[in-house]
Every structure is written in structure tokens, then in C-alpha cells.
């Protein structure tokens, strides 16, 4: 195990230890695990199942139910394009297409350099800004497709 793996493993074990025996502990543990690893690999879910004494089928069920959890590695920057009703009628589909063609990936894919992941989301509650796109915690609203290259370039060199 690499040093980085060992640190992450230790961090995960501390989180599991903290929530062990607590009702409703699975979701916060999965959230923290995703923060630590960037996604929820099978081995991590297995470790959580054993650590919390929860069936693996339950861990997997929760991890696949909530869209905020990812079972695949995600990029350093997660682009979320809102597909709620307001964004949709304001042209979110064109935004998705433009981001996809700029980065050469489809929805739910990650660029080969591991920098960007493209996702569509349900309504994020910023309907007044429709159509809306998020990059990690940054929010961009009232978008037109031609603004996309400029937004992406901010993150390409970071």
C-alpha cells in the first residue's frame, strides 16, 4: 500500500469508528469516504460494510440511490449541469452538448487527464439563474453555450 493509500485508509477508519453503532451512520460515512477518495470504490464500500456491520447490499443500495455518490473515479472538477424544469426550458441541453464537445466526453464520463467529470443534476434550486452550471462549488448562471470555453479555461490551468 502506498503512503497516500495508508493515510486515506486511516482517515476512513477514523470516520467509521466515529459513526459505528449510530443509527443513520451509513450516509455520513459514505459522504466522508467520497470526500477522502473522490468516489466510492468497491473496497471502500466493503470496508464500510464490515466496519459499520451493515450488509454490503445495503451499502451498495444507498451508494447507488443518491446521485451525490459516485462509484466511478471523478475528475478534480465536477461539472454539474442542472436539468430541472426551468434550466431545461432555458436550454440546458445545449449547455450539456457544448461542455461535452469542448471536453470530448459524454455525460457521466471523466476526461482522460482526470481533470473534469460531466454530470447532469436534478433541480439545484437556482431557477432564477437558469440555465445553471456548477463546477465543484462555483456556480455559473444565465449561461449561453459560447460562454462555456471561457469558464472551462479557468480550471484547465489550475
Amino acid at each position, binding site marked *: 500500500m502506498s503512503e497516500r493509500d495508508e493515510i486515506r485508509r486511516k482517515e476512513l477508519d477514523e470516520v467509521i469508528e466515529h459513526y459505528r453503532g449510530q443509527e443513520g451512520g451509513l450516509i455520513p460515512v459514505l459522504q466522508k469516504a467520497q470526500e477522502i477518495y473522490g468516489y466510492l470504490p468497491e473496497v471502500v464500500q*466493503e470496508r464500510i460494510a*464490515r466496519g459499520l456491520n451493515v450488509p*454490503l*447490499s*445495503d451499502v*451498495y*443500495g444507498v451508494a*447507488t*440511490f443518491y446521485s451525490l455518490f459516485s462509484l466511478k473515479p471523478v475528475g478534480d472538477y465536477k461539472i454539474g449541469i442542472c436539468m430541472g424544469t426551468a434550466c431545461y426550458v432555458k436550454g440546458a441541453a445545449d449547455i450539456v452538448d457544448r461542455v461535452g464537445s469542448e471536453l470530448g466526453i459524454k455525460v457521466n464520463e471523466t476526461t482522460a487527464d482526470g481533470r473534469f467529470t460531466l454530470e447532469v443534476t436534478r433541480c439545484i434550486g437556482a431557477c432564477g439563474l437558469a440555465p445553471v452550471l456548477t463546477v465543484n462549488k462555483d456556480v455559473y448562471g444565465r449561461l449561453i453555450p459560447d460562454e462555456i470555453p471561457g469558464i472551462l479555461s479557468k480550471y484547465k490551468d489550475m
Partner: protein
Amino acid sequence: MNPLKMIKLTINDRSVEVAEGTTILEAAAQAGINIPTLCHHPELRKEGSCRVCVVEVEGARSLVASCVHPVMEGMVVRTNTDRVRWTRKNIIELLVAAHDRDCLTCDRNNNCELQRLAQDYGVREVRFPAAVRHDPPDCSSESIIRDTNKCILCGRCIRVCKDIQGVSALGLAFRGSRTKVGPAFNRGLANVACTNCGQCVAVCPVGALKERSAIDDVWKALNDKAKHVVVQVAPAVRAALGEEFGMREGSLVTGKMVAALRRLGFDRVFDTQFAADVTIMEEGHELLHRLENGGPLPLITSCSPGWIKYCEHFYPQLLANVSSCKSPQQIFGALVKTYYAENQGLDPKSIFSVSVMPCTAKKFEAARPEMARDGVRDVDAVLTTRELARMIREAGLDLPSLPEEEFDLPMGMSTGAGAIFGVTGGVMEAALRTVVETVTGKELRHIEFEAVRGFNGVKEATVAVGDRILRAAVVHGLANAGELLGRFCRGEVSYDFIEIMACPGGCIAGGGQPRSCSKETLQMRANALYREDLGKKVRKSHENPAVQEVYQKFLGKPLSEKSHHLLHTSYEKRSDL
């Protein structure tokens, strides 16, 4: 809640009085009013997810799911209005739209709860676009095949696996229209901690879960002139097979079943109960040996392959406690390919050994690599009770009208002790009959051990064996087993001998039995086996003349070197996930 408080309500203008806490569905049933259900199962946690059981409640804004809705004083319920029927029909139509509808070639054709509902509600067209999955079936398991394209997401399999069996091999994953039942990460059942008990198969309302069929292999062997085909039948089969032919529940069809097997073309029709008697000789002496030589105790029975696999996954620290005896199925198989082959002057390789079992886990057990010698398998093919029924129908035989015939000798000779192996507590009772007499040298006056009978999840008894008090426990259903073993591991209880059966009720409720959901059916099947016990001339395993002969002529004595080589086995630790 006061259990005596009674609630008055009206259902379809009839007044009904039921105990507080009763659901509308249960109240209606008590009043003789049938409400259709799909996700509901009387032995499982209530879920209310399919909505097929909706009814109208006066004053309620929407229809309510009667399977989960409790009755209230003065409630006015209608189960058969236009609105109710229209809604149910739409729900069924939606389920059908998402269902792989190759009914004619489905395992459950004519025995499918969705098919029956669609028929009852006159679903004659499906207006919605087909939303059928096209996932490959999971054929990884020796015992069970899972086809998600036929799954209607009722969740019965998940609930039985988690709540009754404490295994949780199956769960729900994803959400919305992508929701799917299965093991984590879509791993095959063979690659997760599945015990193969088949309780999921037993409760599935449709064709999404079924046993891996051995029918073709058995027909092939029966048609092969070079093969000497021998069959053994487990006790629980004779107590349930009749149900497949419309006979009353609890019909004991031993003689007719033997006649049917002969007509199917088996060269010898033998009885697993013979091997159950041998099991008692081996396991009983193993118990005595452990009592005299410092353990490890408790000794835990090893007849139930679902339990064995459960122990390998979840309690590997107790594997040394599990009896090293093979199960009756495998003991029988080992003796057929050695003792019987020698007696008959047959090459073991020319014998095809078939078993008929109430069990899906037996298929996995028979396929275990250690259950063979020099490439000769103890058991070559395992049929479930349901598969045998299909073969009988396929051969054009009408079971109820067949004559009663006797098993072949010598391996068809068995005692009442062997018969009760098929019901929870039976192995314990059979063992006690032999162990007590072996130790005391005196004949037992009363051979029925009532304390270990019945369907309580955990049964305990203390029995005098000579000058020693034997502490015994009997559990059935793997969640019950897990709970008891947990208490044992924490030092809260201690026993000398534990019987564990994977299925709730024992083999009579096995995953390979005719599908039935009622406790009453189980009770009648149990009664049938106790009748078989009572009807036997010999009711103690050690008094079975054919068993005595096998020891005299072949094995020597219980736990002999030959016994160890042929009739005993070992277990392996498996992953807990």
C-alpha cells in the same frame, strides 16, 4: 397497546370486528373478503410498495394500501368499487409493461402471481411502451438462477433474505426506473455470501428466481442404457409432492411417489431416510465422543447445506463445532458408489446417483469439490420437489391415481427417526432416541421429545443422558441461528448439542418445495412426517436392520476409518460479504 381492544368497522357494508392493530387486508380476510396482493407476504415484514391491494376508505383523499393500513373505529372500507378496480388494473398493466412477458416459456407459467392478477383483472392490452430490461440472467450459482428482466421489484426476496435468513445477499440498488434487485455490484449469487437456501425462490411471485434445473441431466441418464440410475428421496418431499397434483396439503404420498419414480425409469428407488439413520449413528457417536473427550461443544448438526454455507461465511470461528458428518444426501451418495456398487458388482462410474430434495442448497452441496472420490461424485444430479413434479407430469403420470409401492432394499429401509429429519427438531429428536439408549443401554419408554417439536424459532431442552444432563437447542431460520450463535459467542448461553436448519420450519419449508406461504400448510406437512414416524415398525435409527448390516458388512463401526473417509467432510472459511 392493549391486544384485547376490539375495533368495529364496515367493509363492503358488512360490519366487522377485529383486534386493534389489524390491517384492513387482514380484517377483510377475516370477513371472507379477498383483496389481491403482490408485494405482501404473510410471513414477511409489511412493505406496501406494489399498491395492488388498494381500497377505498371513506373520508380518505386517496386510495390506501390495505396491507399496511391499520383499521380504525368506525372506518368504512370498500374493496370493490369502480375506482378501486380501475386503479388496480392500471397498476397491474404498468407492472406487465415492465415485465419480460415470455410467459409460455417461463418457469412460472400457470403458477405466477402476476399472470393470475392480469387474468383476474382482465388486462387484455398494454397501452404503455414496454420498459423491459434486457439484462443477462445470473447463472453463476449452482442452486439459483436470477432473471432481473422478470423482476417486479416487490422486494419479497430481499425481505426474506435479510429479515428471516439474516443473510442480505440481495438488496435494492439504483433508483426510479433504474431500480434493480440484486447482490452488491451486480456480483453473481455465487460470488457473494449467499447460502443457496432458496427462500427467495420460494417467495418470488414471478419467474425472476428459480432453481437451476437438473431435469435434462436426469432424463439423459434415464435414457442411457449404460447407466444404472439410482434415486434417493428426502423425507420432506413425500409430505409436499401431492400439493403439486392438487392433493390436500399434508397428504403423505410416499408409496405413490415411489411408484412414480419407478415409472420414470429409475433402476432403484431408495430413501434418503436410510442415510438419515446412518447420519444419526455417526453424529450420535460424534456427540458421545466429544462429551467424553472434552469437546469442542456444542456439537452443531450438519444436515442443512444452507446452514453450513451460512456458518462458513458468517461464523467460521464455529466450524470446529459443526459435526464433520456429511449430510444424509451425501452419505447416501457415498454409500451408493461404494457399498451398493460392491454389493451389486457395479462399476461406480456406471452409476448415476440422483437425489430428490426439498432444497436448492443441496445442488451446491452435491457440487462441492470435496464430495467426490477419484472423480466419482457422491451425487450426480439433484432435483427439487418441484422438478420431480414436473418430470412426473411430463411423463404423463397422474400421481394421485398411482398405486402405493415400497422402496427398494436395502437402502430404502428406514426408521421413523429418519422420517422426522424433514421437520425442525427432527434431527435432534432422532439423535436423542439413539444417544440416550446407547448410553444407558436401556429402552426408552417415551421416544417423543415434544420440547424440540413445533415452530418456535428457538427451542431448548435438557435431557438426561445416563447420569449427565444434555443441554440441547433447536433453531430454524438463519436469522434465528445467527442470533443464537451470537449469544453463544458472547458467552451468554451454553449448550452441548444444537440442531440448526436453514429454512424456517425445517426442510418441509425448503426452497425447493411447492410454493406455499401459510403456516397451516407447514403444520400439515410436519404432521405428515410425524405420521410417517408413527407408522414405522422401527422408530430408532440404531435399530434399522439395513443400517446394522451396512456397519457389519462394510463400515465396521461408527466413526471407523472407513466412515471417516466416506461419510465425513470438512469445511472452509468463506468471505462474509
